[in-house]
């Protein structure tokens, strides 16, 4: 009889402790949910305020055979500034080289003056995508031991804070390692064929 009473008291204490634990956990849960919602709201706000997307039409091409640029019909009046990124079909087109009031000049990835920090998606090696006035680009500083193959994707890197991270740039079409050279010679084909597009998006950071 006395033992039964003791077991009952113990169970009641245990139940009380567990009930307290549940309330404590519910409180923690509530606090965490509140924190989570505030963080996601903050992220949403950041995304909206940080990047603004401006659609634009291509209105002109470069007249020189050695330069690769396009003119688009948006300018500083629409909020475009120098060094804004230009994309289309989720791939990098280039960079705003000069923003006028109503039009802007976009330096394409194939322009000889273009140097874009990138990385090989499959191997995560950092490279530089360099234009050479032809429809192709070349990769610079690809170490000779990097296992790169045809079809590998090159995406942008945010090193230097000029470009957004992981924007597709080009695909590897040819690579060669010359005897004694420190780096591989890699030819890549840009994702965007500028002759086949009429519209682009300017991403304003």
């Amino acid at each position, binding site marked *: 009889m006395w033992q039964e009473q003791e077991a009952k008291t113990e169970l009641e204490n245990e139940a009380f402790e567990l009930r307290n634990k549940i309330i404590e956990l519910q409180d923690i849960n509530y606090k965490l949910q509140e924190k989570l919602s505030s963080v996601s709201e903050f992220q949403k706000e950041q995304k909206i305020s940080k990047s603004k997307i401006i659609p634009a039409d291509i*209105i*002109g*091409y*470069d*007249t*020189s*055979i*050695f*330069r690769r*640029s396009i*003119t688009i019909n948006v300018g500083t009046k629409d909020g475009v500034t120098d060094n804004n990124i230009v994309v289309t079909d989720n791939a990098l087109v280039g960079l705003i*080289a000069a923003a006028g009031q109503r039009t802007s*000049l976009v*330096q394409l990835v194939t*322009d*000889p*003056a273009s140097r874009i920090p990138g990385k090989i998606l499959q191997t995560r090696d950092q490279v530089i995508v*360099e*234009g*050479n*006035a*032809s*429809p192709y680009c*070349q990769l610079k500083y690809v170490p000779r031991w990097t296992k790169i193959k045809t079809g590998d994707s090159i995406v942008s890197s945010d090193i230097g804070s000029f470009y957004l991270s992981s924007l597709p740039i080009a695909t590897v079409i040819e690579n060669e390692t010359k005897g004694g050279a420190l780096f591989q010679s890699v030819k890549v084909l840009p994702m965007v064929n*500028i*002759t086949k597009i009429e519209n682009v998006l300017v991403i304003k950071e």
Partner: protein
Amino acid sequence: MRWITFFCILFCISLFQSTMMNWINIGIAVPDFYFPLVVFYSFFIDVKRNVITSWFTGLSKDLFSEGALGINSVFFIAVGFFIWSIRGMLFRGHLVTKILVTFFFSIVYNLFYALHTVITYRSLNISSTIWMIFICSLYTAAVAPFLFYIFDKLQPTKNLFFMEK
């Protein structure tokens, strides 16, 4: 010489060259419609006007192209002056002369422009650049007779011969 006609031609060429490039190219071969204009005026007008027309033509090309402003003006003035200085040795009225002079000087001009690009950016591939220069010059020379015909209609050359000296 009709300056208004010259500026109208220049405006039309600029408009055509900067908007229709992707419709008139054959692969990487793109014609340069500015160049036959420089050759045309170098053939038929005096040195002073030749320099002015070459300068405006180059400036117009510079305005529609990325890069240093004035570089094409300098090259066009040099090419225009050189063609003007040797034109006495050429039979200017013949179609073959027009094609050959356009082709040869287009190669020279593009080589100098490529050299400038190589020195500035160090990113051109030699073999592909030389091939590109060759086929672009060939295309420019191929369209030159047609352009010369249009220029001749708009700016009759017989009216320009009095400005030869």
